[in-house]
């Protein structure tokens, strides 16, 4: 267990074509999935700052190509750090070999040694550290017991299922009690049911072992359920760092708001109006929404004036209403029955709005809703988010 400190970490991949190609690249030019290109090369991770506390579980989350795996690999020592400083347990480890960082890593593809048995795989890192056979056996047995793979110890990886292989990979990582346990999308190769099961097991495992976790995923559900804090990344830059609840309730910008939450947040073009008395109202379509007093205070504290904004509302905060004033009207495009809830995709004001309604409540109030039905909906002023139309930043 240890603290991990990433200070102004950057990763630059030099231009493949050498200097001539580099001269062609203009400073600040965007490349690939909107990564910055400089004279030096492609900036995969830009000015990454993070302090991970001892025994904390931090999840790096973001879409493909956002630099989350690159960041984790820099912590592991598998990628060179172009700029910045990385400290593990207070020691600068920029130039320290991976084996000397006292870390362990679980890979998406399990990365088990195919020629070794499960026992061989798990005791390999201990053998390399010249730990006596009796201690090795004890540690392997303990880890196998925690992960429920005792009966597979003498099997080869090819004789195991995906979930069992991932358990072995985790076992290999925890058996030597590393200071930091790095996990690079460890559940991505599993089917949905097994992923849910393994996610729950990871939560339990976390309680049983004393270590600091850094976990990479593109699945925001994993990020929300596993992490003490989550780091949302996009195009090599950190968008927001916070607790799952904080990131969900107060997204820092439109990207975070859209990325965290399933189904994703609905966005509407709206007008934020600051009245003469200093109070705010929002006009969206034909409706007018009055933000809660708390939100009003935050907007006022930030000195937000009247302006065009992007209004964000989570699907579960939208309610179907009767026709009338202060409601938005639309036509149902798609009805998705999810079991206890129903996702209604409603076309309103040229946008696809998703409404999550409780199936039982929907039946009671609106009856069976079908594609093509006209519906009205509304939302409360204390559940909306205000984003600048120009910068995308949260105005609160």
């Amino acid at each position, binding site marked *: 267990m240890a603290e991990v400190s990433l200070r102004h970490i950057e990763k630059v991949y030099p231009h493949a074509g050498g200097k001539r190609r580099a001269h062609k690249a203009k400073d600040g030019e965007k490349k690939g999935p909107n990564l910055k290109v400089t004279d030096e090369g492609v900036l995969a991770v830009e000015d990454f700052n993070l302090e991970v506390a001892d025994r904390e579980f931090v999840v790096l989350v973001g879409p493909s190509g956002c630099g989350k795996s690159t960041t984790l690999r820099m912590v592991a020592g598998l990628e060179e750090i172009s700029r910045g400083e990385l400290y593990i347990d207070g020691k600068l480890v920029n130039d320290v070999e991976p084996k000397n960082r006292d870390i362990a890593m679980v890979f998406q593809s399990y*990365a088990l040694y195919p020629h070794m048995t499960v026992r061989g795989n798990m005791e390999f890192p201990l053998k390399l550290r010249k730990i006596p056979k009796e201690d090795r056996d004890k540690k392997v047995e303990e880890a196998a017991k925690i992960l429920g793979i005792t009966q597979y110890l003498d099997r080869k990886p090819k004789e195991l299922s995906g979930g069992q292989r991932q358990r072995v990979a985790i076992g290999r990582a925890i058996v030597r009690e590393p200071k930091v346990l790095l996990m690079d999308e460890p559940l991505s190769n599993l089917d949905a049911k097994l992923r849910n099961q393994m996610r729950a097991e990871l939560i339990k495992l976390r309680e049983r072992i004393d270590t600091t976790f850094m976990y990479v995923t593109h699945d925001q559900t994993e990020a929300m359920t596993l992490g003490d804090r989550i780091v949302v990344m996009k195009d090599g830059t950190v968008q927001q760092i916070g607790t799952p609840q904080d990131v969900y309730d107060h997204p820092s910008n439109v990207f975070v708001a859209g990325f965290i939450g399933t189904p994703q947040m609905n966005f509407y073009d709206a007008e934020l109006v600051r009245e003469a008395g200093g109070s705010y109202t929002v006009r969206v379509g034909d409706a007018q929404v009055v933000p809660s007093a708390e939100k009003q205070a935050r907007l006022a504290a930030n000195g937000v004036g009247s302006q065009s904004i992007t209004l964000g509302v989570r699907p579960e905060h939208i309610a179907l209403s009767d026709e009338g004033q202060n409601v938005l009207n639309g036509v149902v495009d798609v009805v998705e029955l999810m079991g206890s809830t129903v996702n209604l995709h409603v076309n309103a004001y040229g946008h696809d709005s998703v409404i999550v309604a409780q199936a039982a409540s929907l039946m009671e109030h609106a009856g069976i809703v079908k594609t093509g039905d006209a519906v009205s909906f509304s939302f409360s002023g204390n559940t909306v988010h205000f984003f600048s139309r120009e910068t995308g930043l949260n105005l609160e």
Partner: protein
Amino acid sequence: MKRKHILSWVGTAFFCVLCFIWVLPIIIVLMDSFKSRTFISLQPFELPTEQTFVGLENYIQAIDRYGFLDAVWWTVFITIGSVFVILLCCSMCAWFITRVSNRFNRAVYLLCVLSMVVPFQMVMFTLSLVADRLNLDTPWGIIIIYLGFGAGLAVFMFCGFVKSIPIEIEEAALIDGCSPLRTFFSVVLPIMKPTYISVGILQTMWIWNDFLLPYLVLDTNDYKTISIVIQFMKGSYGRVDMGAIMAALIMAVIPVVVFYLLCQKHIIKGVAAGAVKG
């Protein structure tokens, strides 16, 4: 259904005949190796009779008079030594040039591939001169030359396999505490076992049967391989000891056949794996 059955029988019969034609020369050599020298030329295709049968005399002659056992020893030494060096050096080289991608390594790879298409006859004159000047005319020296000739195919085959090994396995080894060398010997080498067997078999067959390179390079007064000894049995001024040649040929073939039978499973597996992986 009936037609399919007939076709199957025709196919079987055709391939039986083909196999017989393929094996016939070996059978003739085997028969002749038990005949006296005179009758080998007079009745080469007939079975040994009471008059022509000489038992193991030709074999004893080949071993005693022409130093066949010495030749076997040097051939075994050169083959095992060369194959070992080729497997070790080329697998390490292939691993490095596949994992460390830069211009130099790409050039080395292309050079290796290019060496496969250069015919031996094109370089044999200069090679024998260089080998002579560098004192490589010994069984130890020829191993280095074989490494050069075997490297093309071996590096090409190893590179193909290394590309199919997920890099995460090697990264996991690095994190677990392996040095690059330990990663190679503890992780990469065992994974590459099928390719080691395939490359080893191909190189063994070639080096065991090779005549021209050892004939040009080796100091034949001191060191002779099996193929050189058989050539020497022809002697000078047209004097040919056909009996000893036939016996030597059979003795030379036996280790290769045994080796093939032992490795047959791996050869088929290697070919099949290559076919599936493309």
